[in-house]
């Protein structure tokens, strides 16, 4: 379980997170919604320790992340996988090297076993025969899937998805959504998905949390989201420019 309490972060003059509280249950897929610039990605980067908050606490199982030394934090990070918005594949490496990097760095595995695991994870995300290809030669959807293969190669307990469908066509978006669901079922992982794509949110979520003004202003199941009368949530679902959410 991930327990976030009073998370506060100011970037320059902007108060991005302002005392945010959120609980993420083990094994669930929670979608964090919110307009652009409300700190969804910032929240994700705090959960994996890429950013340090000004105040607050993040507990992953029994480990308090805030104040941890880099070495301890790295042990926690090994339990996570993260899919970045632009996939963040290393340009200088092939897809196979990208996916196998964590295995080579952290596990004493033979090259044969690494190759086997890399091929297997690439197949899980629907990519075959791309091990020797450089990321620059892949399409947007293939890059995301390769990024996902890299995120799951160490059998993480938690997968963080930063805008997994942004920039993809509707069909490829659906492929990614199905992958998120199938990985959750296959691996039993906890998934945190940051998005503003409601179609994707409805398809993958067990629960949704709405982020606005640096706080979580609404949490609920998919059914609760569909029927909610919360004005912030309703405006976001309906995609209306009229309402309490002011476009930035």
């Amino acid at each position, binding site marked *: 379980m991930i327990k976030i309490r009073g998370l506060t972060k100011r970037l320059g003059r902007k108060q991005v997170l302002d005392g945010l509280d959120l609980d993420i249950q083990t094994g669930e897929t929670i979608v964090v919604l919110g307009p652009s610039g409300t700190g969804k990605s910032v929240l994700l980067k705090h959960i994996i320790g890429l950013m340090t908050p000004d105040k607050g606490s993040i507990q992953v199982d029994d480990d308090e992340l805030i104040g941890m030394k*880099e070495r301890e934090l790295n042990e926690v*990070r090994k339990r996570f996988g993260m899919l*970045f918005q*632009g996939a*963040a*594949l290393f*340009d200088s490496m092939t897809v196979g090297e990208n996916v196998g990097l964590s295995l080579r*760095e952290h596990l004493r595995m033979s090259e044969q076993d690494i190759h086997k695991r890399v091929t297997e994870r690439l197949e899980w995300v629907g990519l075959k025969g791309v091990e020797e290809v450089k990321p620059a030669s892949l399409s947007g959807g293939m890059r995301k899937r390769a990024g996902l293969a890299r995120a799951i190669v160490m059998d993480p307990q938690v997968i963080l998805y930063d805008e997994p469908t942004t920039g993809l066509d509707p069909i490829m978006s659906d492929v990614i959504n199905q992958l998120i669901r199938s990985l959750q079922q296959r691996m039993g992982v906890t998934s945190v998905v940051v998005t503003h794509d409601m179609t994707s949110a409805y398809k993958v979520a067990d629960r949704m949390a709405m982020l606005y003004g640096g706080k979580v202003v609404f949490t609920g199941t998919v059914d609760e989201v569909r029927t909610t009368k919360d004005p912030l949530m309703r405006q976001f679902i309906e995609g209306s420019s009229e309402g309490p959410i002011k476009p930035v």
Partner: protein
Amino acid sequence: MNGDDLAVRGFLAIRNRFFNWLAEIGRVTILLGDVGRYFVPGVRAMHLVIQQCHAIGVGSLWLVVVVSMFTGAVSAVQAAYQFSTVVPLKFIGSVILRSVIIELGPVLTALIVGGRVGASIAAELGTMKVTEQVDALRAMAINPVRYLVVPRVVAAIIMLPVLTVFADAIAVFGGWFVAVTTIGVSSHTYVLGLKQFFYYKDLFSGLFKAVIFGGIIGTMGCYYGFATEGGAEGVGIATTRAVVASCVLVLISDYVLANVLFRFIFAS
């Protein structure tokens, strides 16, 4: 705006610049501390160091060859012109050799490599930073200083002296070629001049400088790469800053090292 306002604004601008400069020195020092901390595990990943040695050394070799060849050639022409009425031409080999191994070889190599490699390191790491590849490494529990910075700094420290040895040899050869073919000095006289005033301490001093210059170029490239903010514009700014900082620091440290080496260590 009156004169007093202008003076206050000017003072504040200078003060802010000074504090920014101090902060930058602090951040570079922290990076150097991290390089020290992750030095052993970073060097243990030998394949990364070798990869960078290839990129820095082999990639710069032809540029160093061309520049050194003409440096030696110009040195010969200049020496012949300045010697014309004062010093016998038999000393031309000595003058070229000593000026090349003490000063021209290491400094020109450092300026060439600083321009080429400093820019390339800053651009590569800067692009990795703005496309979240550095964050991805950290998310994978891989320390970016260990994985990206240490191999580049170590490779620059190793390859600068190697390139300097090439530069020295080729510049001396370039000087010989011009001296023999256009100035009328015989090969025997030129080589005799080389031998007559060759001191190992000169060679050591030049190579020691090259080691320091390598450290500066690698560190500046990595520092400005990691400090990149924004998109393509940020990468461009980081690249320019890395090259400017490398070249300026090479020249400043050259002056400091010249004083330390030739006025204290090898004074006698």
